[in-house]
């Protein structure tokens, strides 16, 4: 692995943004490499978020984030339909629990309009309870956001990476960037597994974005890992809530939401806590206590259900309120920094923006003719037919009728497909993100041994 890889553009970071950029670039007349420190794409911040496809109704009007989210929503909605990323347009309702929150709703509706979204509607308490009957007592009114949607964040990242690879991009996984040296013709990126030489580089390193930026001699921002803990409730809770229930945002952040997940569960969270350690995705007793107390107010019946999973994600917060997207033509370098949880929605717009910036700085990025058709991703969303329900599939291949993971109803055929897919999983967590195996209520009580045996046979 000591031979240097030579490409036109190297993208650092295999999260949702980096993969979107690699996909976009690979559709142009340049050679592309994606460098990711972990053994899989989407294995850090991109795997643990609230998984919402945002309209951007509550962004800061005029900000880059606002325009990227609005553009990204449209792009990703179309792309999701094309490649089979599960999306459910559940809509959201922002619930006011106090007089000042109620008073803030019309202002939020105006702000939405300034963000280019004009479908918000202020409703009274009765309407809020009609929409979410399981809501706890004390709601005073709400703001309806009909187009907020839920999406599968794992399939999104994988679809981008798969298409990037099919278009010829090199996926360099398991390589951490240790140094960057800008030369006159090419930049040399040192990694833990050899060098990569590229004319241009794109920094989409997420939590490590500021560190890579400093390797290039800049001092523009510092990432503060902001931990968000989430609780995922049993699928039996899904009947309680069929849309995203949001709090009215305050100075302290967006607050705790209750949302259906694309896999048919209900999610409660996130917390918001600044950390120092950029790899600390542990959960905490304080976080659990905070979320359960919030949950008890928002939706008491939710707490009667079992918790299926808990996890923590780290958002790449910075001292800037907006994304930090800049180009340095002399260094042939694009920075996509400070991309927070809205990055999932904004990913395709950010990819487009990165290309525009490079083109403006002189890189020729003509759209390439004859790119392969986009991949068709396996559906792991609950609202669409899964293989176990499909007579046609099972008749053709009985492995789709052999359920291995009972809680999530994942068939042997789906696990086999994932293990043979263009970007196969490297561990049980990766398999979970591709198939849902092991993510259900038993957490492996019944199927853990079987699934791990399949994984071992193949890897």
């Amino acid at each position, binding site marked *: 692995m000591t031979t240097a890889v030579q490409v036109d553009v190297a993208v650092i970071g295999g999260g949702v943004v980096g993969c979107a950029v690699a996909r976009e670039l690979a559709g142009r007349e340049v050679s592309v490499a994606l460098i990711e420190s972990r053994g899989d794409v989407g294995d850090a911040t991109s795997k643990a978020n609230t998984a919402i496809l945002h309209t951007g109704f509550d962004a800061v009007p005029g900000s880059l984030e606002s325009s990227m989210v609005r553009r990204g929503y449209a792009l990703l909605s179309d792309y999701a339909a094309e490649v089979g990323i599960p999306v459910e347009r559940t809509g959201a309702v922002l619930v006011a629990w106090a007089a000042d929150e109620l008073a803030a709703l019309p202002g939020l509706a105006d702000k939405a309009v300034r963000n280019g979204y004009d479908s918000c509607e202020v409703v009274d308490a009765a309407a809020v309870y009609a929409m979410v009957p399981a809501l706890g007592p004390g709601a005073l009114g709400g703001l309806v956001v009909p187009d907020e949607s839920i999406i599968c964040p794992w399939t999104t990242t994988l679809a981008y990476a798969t298409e990037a690879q099919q278009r010829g991009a090199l996926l360099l996984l398991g390589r951490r960037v240790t140094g960057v040296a800008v030369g006159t013709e090419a930049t040399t990126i040192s990694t833990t597994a050899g060098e990569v030489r590229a004319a241009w580089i794109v920094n989409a390193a997420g939590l490590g974005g500021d560190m890579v930026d400093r390797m290039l001699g800049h001092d523009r921002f510092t990432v503060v890992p902001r931990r968000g803990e989430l609780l995922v409730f049993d699928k039996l809770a899904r009947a309680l809530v069929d849309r995203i229930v949001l709090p009215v945002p305050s100075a302290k952040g967006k607050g705790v939401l209750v949302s259906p997940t694309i896999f048919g569960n209900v999610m409660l969270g996130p917390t918001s806590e600044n950390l120092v350690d950029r790899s600390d995705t542990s959960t905490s007793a304080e976080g659990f206590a905070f979320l359960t107390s919030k949950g008890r107010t928002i939706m008491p019946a939710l707490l009667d259900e079992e918790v299926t999973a808990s996890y923590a994600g780290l958002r790449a917060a910075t001292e800037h309120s907006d994304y930090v997207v800049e180009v340095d033509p002399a260094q042939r370098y694009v920075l996509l920094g400070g991309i927070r949880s809205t990055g999932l929605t904004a990913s395709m717009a950010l990819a487009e923006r990165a290309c525009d910036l490079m083109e403006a700085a002189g890189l020729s990025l003509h759209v390439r003719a004859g790119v392969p058709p986009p991949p068709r991703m396996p559906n792991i969303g609950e609202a669409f037919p899964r293989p176990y329900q499909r007579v046609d599939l099972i008749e053709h291949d009985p492995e789709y009728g052999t359920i291995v993971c009972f809680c999530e109803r994942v068939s042997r055929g789906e696990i086999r497909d994932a293990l043979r897919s263009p970007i196969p999983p490297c561990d049980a967590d990766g398999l979970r993100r591709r198939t849902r195996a092991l993510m259900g209520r038993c957490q492996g*009580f*019944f199927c853990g041994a079987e699934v791990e045996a399949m994984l071992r046979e193949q890897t």
Partner: protein
Amino acid sequence: MSEQRATLRPTVAIVGGGPAGLTAATTLRRLGIESVLVLEREQQAGGIPRNSDHTGYGVRDLRTVLTGPAYAERLVRQARDWRVDIRTASTVTDWADDRSLMVTSPEGRLRVDAQAVVLATGARERPRSARMVPGDRPSGVLTTGQLQNLVHGRHERSGGQVGVRAVVVGAELVSWSAVLTLREAGCATAMMTTEHQRAESYAAFTIPGRSLLRVPVSRRTRVTRIVGRERVEAVEVTRLDTGQSMTVPCDTVVFTGDWIPDGELARLRGLDMDRGSRAPLVDTALRTSLDGVFAAGNLLHPVDTADVAALDGRHVAAQVLAYLAAPSWPVEGTRLVAGEGFAWIAPGVVRLGDPPPARSRLLLWPTAHRSVARVVVRQDDAVLARRVLPWAASPGRVFRVPWGLLDKVDPSGGDVTVSLA
């Protein structure tokens, strides 16, 4: 995409091929029911005993002592000898209608229309996530079920999930079963933790536990954090009374017991559920709230021993037979309620004219230990019975109350509460 390709029309469909389901099936055949179908989602029928490779099975139902796998095999063979249609790798995913199930199997998508349905889907251990134990999320965190599947299942050992030094959370019967399995896999148990003052399991198990297995049981403690990014490195154990915590190095953590019924199908059809046990609410004939749908086994009392689950199966078979002969479904009834000292009681409904419960016992889950168990039965503020039972009440094992204590219940009265004085 059509809904299904074939419809099966057995007289009775039983969901779950463990001790309760198989025994119910065999008994129904013995009683003359021609067509009995067992739907088992695993590749093999037999249920949880299949992977519990120690002795003690079959005492009450088969009047013998077998290992778990031998017991499971015996139940399967009996059912097959009686020409029960056992379909393995067949997962009931949903209901098509009352008494009508949708099934996924390698043969395709089936619909099963039965005259009566018995739910015997058992229980599972509450995993770490549902217990909300914070910390890192490394590998090496298991339940007993997963551990025994790894070690005794048809798979090559454990694939690295089982290490060399374990902490076992819980001190129930199943917890000791986990210790034995760990030992077999070459993993020593450094500590067992229990939130209770006394180890919960039978003395018979605790004594060899202490002497032979030499496992220290840390009482009144709770695992409050898991440490280790890739692999478990330690757990934080906190004393409930002082709040003092210590770090116990280990590479494996097994969460044992703390059972929850696998009641998804019951919930999906909106059956009345018991809040205490999270199981479908049944009467003494094991009828649920839905006409023609019965339930049996550890789905109802998570968990009693396998033989007690099997005897539930025998009990429900007689009730199903009576229903098939004269299909009627009572609705009203007097509720049995778990009072002070108990988390749940099963069955939960009594009614004039109904049979006594299986084995003429009510099953309850104690929340506290009582060496001398004084049971009080009340209805509408009147004490109906008060009796000291000759067995202790201990959290972590089912407590049995003779049916005779309910002799004075007024079927037209209010709720009946059973408590520990």
